[in-house]
């Protein structure tokens, strides 16, 4: 026992040397093991949720790009028939299409170009004159325009015998269904990941709070009001949640930025073109980054609200 004599009880006030005085240690202990574990859980779950969000955004934007690319083009076919001058019919159909409102560009595929299209299936050295191959005219729709395609179809049928118009409706419908399914599945997975994140963050926060029960009790017994105690814990856990969220969300943002940069560096190569065709620019865009930041804030709020709820429940059990 290091108790001093009774004279110490009347000793004059003095500041001893030794360790630096601490006047303002936070009421809620920082840097505890449970606090660090909570930061790790929040960081990992935020990272996973951010990756899922990014993946869903990539799939959704790629699907929308596929659809719009296909929908911006229609094809006119001139079917060969005995006595039909395909070149004249193609030129007439092209002229009619060019004059139609909302059309940006019309390009008639020459015989050689048509042969090139068929090369993968029929081999080279193909003589198109010997085959009844239809002539193709690719019509590009002006951006932002919505031309009356049924009217164009009717007009072509009237003016150019053997001309048919394909607006790729069947492809677009199938693509829309496929993209819709992919996006819906992605959103479902995202919701599950967010729910798992909320639950794990809630339980990790409760676990971290359990070690702080003595602090809550002491503050309560020395006359702290419930709002004061809950406020201190909420602020502390909001900070922990933001730290974990910043680590997890920040890592995800860095990863997306790197993926975008890498896909930019390899642009032009065959592999990169395939990837770009599938996933677009590989960038989640400003909206994606905002969504990740939103998740970080949401998860930090969940930790703060859970801590407040746990403090209030603990206070209820004390009294």
């Amino acid at each position, binding site marked *: 026992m290091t108790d001093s004599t009774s004279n110490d009880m009347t000793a004059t006030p*003095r500041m001893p040397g030794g360790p630096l005085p601490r006047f303002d*240690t936070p009421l809620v202990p920082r840097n505890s093991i449970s606090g660090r574990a909570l930061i790790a859980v929040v960081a990992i779950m935020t990272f996973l949720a951010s990756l899922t969000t990014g993946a869903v955004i990539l799939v959704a934007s790629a699907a929308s790009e596929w659809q719009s690319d296909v929908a911006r083009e229609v094809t006119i076919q001139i079917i060969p028939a005995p006595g039909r001058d395909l070149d004249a019919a193609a030129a007439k159909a092209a002229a009619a299409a060019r004059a139609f409102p909302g059309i940006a560009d019309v390009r008639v595929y020459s015989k050689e170009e048509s042969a090139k299209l068929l090369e993968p299936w029929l081999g080279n050295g193909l003589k198109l004159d010997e085959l009844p191959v239809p002539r193709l005219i690719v019509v590009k729709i002006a951006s932002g325009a919505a031309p009356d395609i049924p009217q164009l179809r009717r007009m072509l049928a009237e003016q150019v015998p053997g001309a048919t118009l394909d607006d790729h409706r069947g492809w677009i419908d199938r693509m829309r269904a496929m993209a819709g399914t992919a996006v819906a599945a992605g959103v479902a997975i995202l919701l599950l990941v967010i729910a798992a994140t909320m639950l794990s963050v809630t339980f990790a926060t409760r676990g971290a709070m359990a070690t702080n029960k003595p602090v809550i009790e002491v503050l309560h017994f020395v006359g702290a009001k*419930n709002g004061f105690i809950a406020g201190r814990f909420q602020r502390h856990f909001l900070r922990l949640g933001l730290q974990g969220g910043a680590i997890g969300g920040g890592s995800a943002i860095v990863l997306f930025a790197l993926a975008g940069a890498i896909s930019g560096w390899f642009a032009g190569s065959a592999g990169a073109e395939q990837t770009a065709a599938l996933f677009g620019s590989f960038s989640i865009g400003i909206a994606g980054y905002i969504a990740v930041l939103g998740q970080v804030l949401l998860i930090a709020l969940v930790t703060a609200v859970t801590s407040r709820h746990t403090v209030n429940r603990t206070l209820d059990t004390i*009294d």
Partner: protein
Amino acid sequence: MVRFENVGLRYGLGPEVLRDLTFRIEPHSFQFLTGPSGAGKTSLLRLLFLSLKPTRGLITQFSHDVATLSKDAVATLRRRIGIVFQDFRLLDHMSTYENVALPLRVMGRREDTYRDEVIELLNWVGLGERMWALPPVLSGGEKQRAAIARAVIARPQLLLADEPTGNVDPSLAQRLLRLFIELNKSGTSVVIATHDIALMDQYDARRLVLHEGRLHIYD
């Protein structure tokens, strides 16, 4: 200051642990609360400290009926009561100085307004040299004195102590008793829960004796 009228207490559906308690604690009074283990001393202290509500009867503290108080009002009232727990309940992550200053801090006072007060009290209880030490490195007696200093720093009108000499040697017990007597002389009403008869024999004070849930008063 404190008035109990026909107060009874039971936990859940169990038997009454305290029965028909009727007594007063007057300002500037000093009393020992004693009785065998399990007689209900800690329960009575908790009633006095407003951390339990009676299952029947009336408790009035500082002219307030405790049954009608809101949680915030209880917290405000509790600032007029100091309590020394048997297990000290010091916060291990804070220095002795900060533990003692805690009641003033939660009242919202700025640190520079109470620093001298806290240092003076720490010197008075003999912890002047240990004020920057963390509780885990304090001896049992030092912890006990830190807990007492924390209980009295806000100059409470009522001081409750639960077995304050239970963990210390007889000479320190005697010194702690002198400390309580000094506090009482400075105007604080003191209730010391103890079953240390030797301690009670050292000071002629009112005795509240709990036996089988009933209170017997020896003035």
